[in-house]
């Protein structure tokens, strides 16, 4: 928590004293040193993405029977058919150019039947539950997200939410800054005014929030300057999630080592498409963004792990509108320069009617706290006590992904 200490000292400084210099001194260094140089990014697909379209159970007759219109075809020469992974599984063809190469080079793994044991099938209940990372039974502290607790236990961590508001996952005792990176505007409040505004908040509960806001703004603007510089040299400018992911990468390469970002648009009740169509376009954008992130991290990619999660999977059967309804088990993605990928990991069962949860969804065989606990334990060498702090009452399962 090196940033926190700096903040504490910052508040004591006299006003009007070179605010800009202060900012320059605080940002930029911890990221490279903190957490042993390890970086962790969690990507949350809000809306419950259709995992069975991403990691296609190409060996399951049942899958093709219950999805007459929206199944992804078995691997073939057809560009809209699944990409071959294992005898049981294929990958959505929208990821052909972006993430399939990472899978083949062993830097990407998938964990099917992953998720939470909460089977409310409510977006909000399950999202909150996963972000809190606390046991489902008993009292839950709604102001304590698991990545905030992770920021607490990882030495030298410097966390940031790349979202417009601080999400539940980062709520807690560590004051985590945030900045949405979809669109950026140049600030008009200058350094002197910032200092005077900050002075009004001294001694109030928002003091460090306000200080963080000004600091992060400086960090982000520095990154934006680089981006504009690149754009001026006629580089192709990225759009949408890819642009966002590149910005995240630059900030995580230089200043922050624990990150969170969410991506919406996955609640495909109607007309989700198959090898092409709505969901294919969403996966394409996501895939290109993650590939861009990996590329932009440069040499830091070797020490970076990205996990992609979602609140639940969707019904295995298509619904009446060529879409899918809220389900249970999902497929999580683990990628990074040090990931032992190129495989489909974790406990699995054949995809058939008899293995469905409540005769409609994937079961959850790889509980998210156990799974993430195992990844984080490897990544940060967390002690049992630290792990207990991050995921109280959970038993980490090491799938050998790192």
């Amino acid at each position: 928590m090196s940033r926190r200490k700096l903040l504490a000292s910052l508040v004591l400084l006299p006003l009007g004293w070179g605010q800009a210099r202060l900012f320059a001194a605080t940002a930029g260094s911890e990221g490279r040193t903190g957490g042993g140089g390890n970086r962790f990014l969690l990507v949350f697909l809000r809306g419950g993405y259709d995992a069975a379209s991403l990691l296609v159970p190409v060996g399951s007759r049942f899958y093709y029977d219950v999805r007459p219109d929206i199944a992804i075809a078995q691997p073939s020469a057809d560009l809209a058919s699944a990409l071959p992974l294992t005898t049981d599984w294929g990958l959505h063809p929208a990821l052909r150019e972006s993430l399939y190469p990472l899978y083949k080079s062993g830097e990407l793994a998938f964990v099917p039947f992953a998720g939470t044991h909460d089977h409310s099938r409510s977006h909000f209940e399950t999202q909150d539950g996963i972000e809190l990372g606390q046991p489902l039974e008993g009292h839950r502290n709604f102001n304590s997200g698991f990545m905030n607790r992770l920021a607490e236990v990882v030495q030298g961590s410097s966390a940031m939410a790349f979202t417009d508001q601080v999400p539940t996952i980062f709520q807690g005792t560590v004051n985590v800054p945030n900045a949405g990176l979809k669109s950026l505007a140049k600030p008009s409040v200058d350094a002197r005014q910032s200092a005077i505004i900050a002075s009004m908040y001294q001694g109030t509960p928002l003091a460090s929030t306000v200080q963080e806001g000004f600091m992060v703004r400086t960090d982000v603007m520095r990154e934006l300057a680089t981006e504009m510089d690149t754009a001026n040299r006629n580089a192709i400018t990225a759009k949408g999630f890819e642009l966002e992911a590149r910005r995240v990468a630059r900030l995580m390469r230089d200043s922050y080592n624990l990150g969170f970002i969410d991506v919406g648009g996955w609640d495909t009740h109607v007309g989700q498409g198959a090898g092409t169509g709505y969901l294919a376009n969403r996966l394409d954008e996501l895939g290109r963004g993650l590939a861009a992130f990996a590329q932009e991290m440069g040499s830091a990619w070797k020490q970076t792990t990205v996990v992609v999660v979602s609140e639940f999977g969707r019904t295995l059967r298509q619904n009446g509108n060529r879409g899918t309804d809220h389900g249970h088990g999902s497929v999580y993605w683990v990628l990074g320069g040090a990931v032992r990928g190129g495989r489909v990991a974790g406990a699995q069962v054949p995809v058939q009617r008899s293995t469905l949860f409540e005769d409609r969804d994937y079961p959850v065989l790889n509980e998210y706290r156990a799974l993430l606990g195992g990844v984080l334990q490897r990544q940060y060498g967390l002690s049992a006590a630290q792990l207990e702090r991050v995921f109280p009452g959970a038993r980490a399962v090491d799938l050998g992904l790192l």
Partner: protein
Amino acid sequence: MSGSANKGARGRWAIAWSSVGCGVLAGCAATAVAPGSGGVGAPAPVPKEAMAATKPMTSDYVLVNRLTWGATSSAVAAFDSMGWSAYVQRQLQLGSEPLPDDAQRQINDLHALNRPLLELVQDLERQRVQADALTNDDAKKAAQQAYQQALNGLQRDAASRHLLRALYSPRQVQEEMTWFWLNHFSVHQGKGNLRALVGDYEETALRPHAMGHFRDLLGAVVTHPAMLRYLDNEQNALGHLNENYARELMELHTLGVDGGYSQTDVQELARVLTGVGINQTSNVPGMKPELRGFYVRRGLFEFNPARHDFGSKTLLGKPVHGSGLAELDDVLDRLASQPATARFISGKLAHYWLGDTVPGALVQRMAATFEKTRGDIAAVLAVLFASPEFVNGAPHTFKDPMRYVVSAVRLAYDQKVVLNVGPMLNWLNRMGEPLYGRLTPDGYPMQASAWASPGQMATRFEVAKAIGSGSAGLFKVDGPQPQERAAFPQLSNAVYYQSMARTLAPATLHALDQAVSPQEWNSFLLSAPEMMVR
């Protein structure tokens, strides 16, 4: 400016202010000055006798600020002349009061909002179909763009009307409740042609019932095309079950997630909702003669018995007899009268008005009134507004962006009606809370922790500076002959000197003293911690 130069700032600053004068403040001479505000001139120290007449901390200013979209000099004056109980009573009464002419005229000019919805949507559908049918790529692209622009314009009109009412309606509580229900029964404008529907949704389903009975409100929402489209119920039919709306109807709109329903209840409610949908054409769908008596059509709303599952159902342990649309009335009665619904709605109301620290006993009293009055929203609010927590509490509820923006503009301009709410729409976008802009059906969160983030604060100070530094585009009229009327934010006004100033902490007053211009003084005031809470 260095730190030392700030010392003795008050004197320096007053000089700076008068020397800046009207040269910088474009048109300030033409601006009406609120009585007692001292205009844009130097803020003279608050007179001793005014201080002596000060009321306790929960002053009129604090109460008005809590009850309305934000305190203004005129609202506090109205409150003072009526007294608390008469003021609250008037706010809770049903009925309407006219807006200031300048505001009403702008609303009247939003012509498309006054067209019958069916006709409007049919015109737009024709436009869309014609655009899609074009074979020339450029022409097609242009026509499709024009269609999208028409939709954008409709959404913007609806949002503009919402803001004008929030700013100027004498019925402040009704406007706040309209926003509250819009957020409770949240829809996202980005889906399909919802941009054309949100204005009508607000006007016919939400606003008329915002202070009425919850059951009526619920019924109006369930049959409005905006909700039926947003949560996919228009797709829900016998043999093609779509449970999206059924689930949210119980989880988010009535019982709450812990309200005691099961996955089976979701499926059964989805069956009840089959055939409840939208018809954008003027045609009656074909059906067996024996079903025709069940067919219902009201504008865009359609109940199509040929798509309905007439089989028997069980919801919350009680049977629902297959009887067409009457089943829906039956189950809505059931849902609206559940104790879980009374608790859930009361809890949300209390949270909206009082913030994160709502005592359970108060929510219980509100829920009891909810049950006793069969969901009379005004009666439930009356319990809330009479509670000691509401009347005596110090300001502590963190403002969400909507409340921040509206309160800042109200404080800055009071009854001087803005001519363009476009900048406000942009600020709401930047702060992450645009009208009709919540992607997910849960509505925007009201917890302070959801908004009081570093990124939000940095953006909020930018917005404060924009509002404080000049007219900020609020008095600029778009159109063929763009015009800008002179205006300057009047923040050093009557309510500031009579009430607000003495609620400010020393650090805030000290910061204000360091301002080198009226613009900066305004920006600092709007950036102050006291401006963030109510």
